[in-house]
């Protein structure tokens, strides 16, 4: 099984990669064969993640965004079919119901990369709110059950029935100087 993450630009740095690996190793219960980091900045934005569909064409794959809190043993997130999060259970309707903070597939889904590459400049210019809208419009997908809430609803209390949270827009919580329940699971700055 392969764990994948993606780091590019200035928003995230090596601390964020090390922090994700730390949380996976310490709290998730996941056993994996390799921890892969995509760092090639082809598009300057979230579409860089799509490189993983080209690079990793076999075996079990599990992708995480870097702005997550993993604080307990994860449920089985490995999927055969291309699967990502559906956020509509915790937020108001938006341009897409999807959230690719966690993605899993087994085998070869390089058709996603091929489809995107057909008109990558157009897609990057058109889907400016994020790649999740692109999945919604062009790719067949499955979604996880309710496994990953947003921390915005749990700033002051650790969500008891889950084991992973997305930080969403609240990246500041990973900066030095923040001390909440979440920071107990982060690497020390």
């Amino acid at each position, binding site marked *: 099984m392969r764990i994948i993450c993606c780091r590019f*630009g*200035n*928003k995230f740095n090596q601390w964020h990669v090390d922090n994700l690996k730390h949380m996976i190793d310490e709290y998730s219960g996941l056993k994996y064969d390799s921890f892969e980091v995509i760092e090639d900045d082809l598009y300057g934005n979230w579409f860089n993640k799509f490189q993983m569909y080209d690079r990793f064409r076999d075996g079990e794959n599990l992708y995480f965004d870097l702005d997550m809190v993993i604080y307990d043993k994860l449920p089985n997130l490995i999927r055969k079919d291309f699967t990502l999060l559906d956020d509509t259970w915790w937020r108001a309707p938006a341009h897409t119901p999807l959230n690719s903070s966690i993605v899993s597939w087994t085998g070869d889904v390089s058709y996603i990369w091929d489809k995107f590459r057909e008109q990558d400049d157009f897609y990057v210019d058109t889907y400016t709110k994020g790649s999740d809208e692109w999945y919604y419009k062009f790719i067949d997908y499955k979604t996880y059950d309710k496994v990953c809430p947003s921390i*915005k609803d749990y*700033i*002051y209390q650790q969500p008891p029935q889950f084991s992973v949270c997305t930080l969403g*827009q*609240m*990246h*500041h*919580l990973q*900066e*030095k*100087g*923040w*001390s*909440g329940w979440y920071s107990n699971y982060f690497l020390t700055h």
Partner: protein
Amino acid sequence: MLKICTVYFDGFYTPDYVARFYDSLKKYSTVDFQSVCISDTDVKADVVLPYNHNSKIVKHWHKLKFFSPQFAYQNPDDEIIIMDIDQVIVNNIDDLLNHPVEENELVTYGQWWSDALKFNGGFYKFKSGSLRKIWDDFALNPEFWQLNYYNKGIVHKKYYGEQNYVGNKVKEHNYKLTLTPHEWVTKYTDDYAENLKLNKMYMDKFDTDYMILDNEVNEKLKVVHFTGVGRKINENYLL
């Protein structure tokens, strides 16, 4: 513990503003405090926390982080003061730093030189965490709030309006607003004519002979705030 919190970032002021401010706090008070500064460079403060230029939060809006009890290593019994660094302390400020504050109360400068704003955001004092909704609401959508007052034409420079935001949230959440005595603080500028006008207003409002006269500062005055768009501290006009 009392924490006195500031924000510094490269682009307008220089790090010596923080040092001068820190030194003047020490010089003009006998109050025990810890200074905390969010900064993008090394500055003179007891605790320096990183200013993230890659954040969606910009400029002075970082001040609002201190309203969160989860920031800057706050403890439940702490009292928090947020101050701008474009201020010069001119007399003893023990009464200002020790100003009593209750839960769910914001103490801020009463200001007398403009009808546009009820208070001046150069000073906020509150009990740690008691005004957390000011931060929590902002953190849900910082990009919206940072431009909200500019987009509505209420302020005329991008990313201004933090005082408006704090004032609105104080009302929305029914926090108590307490103003410090108005004569404790003045606005000052590098414009001679404007300073004359400010002096005259101060004399009239507070029945005194002068506010700042050459090197003399009225004993009622504690802090001079070089507030306003594009304004820097100009000590040639002060001390």
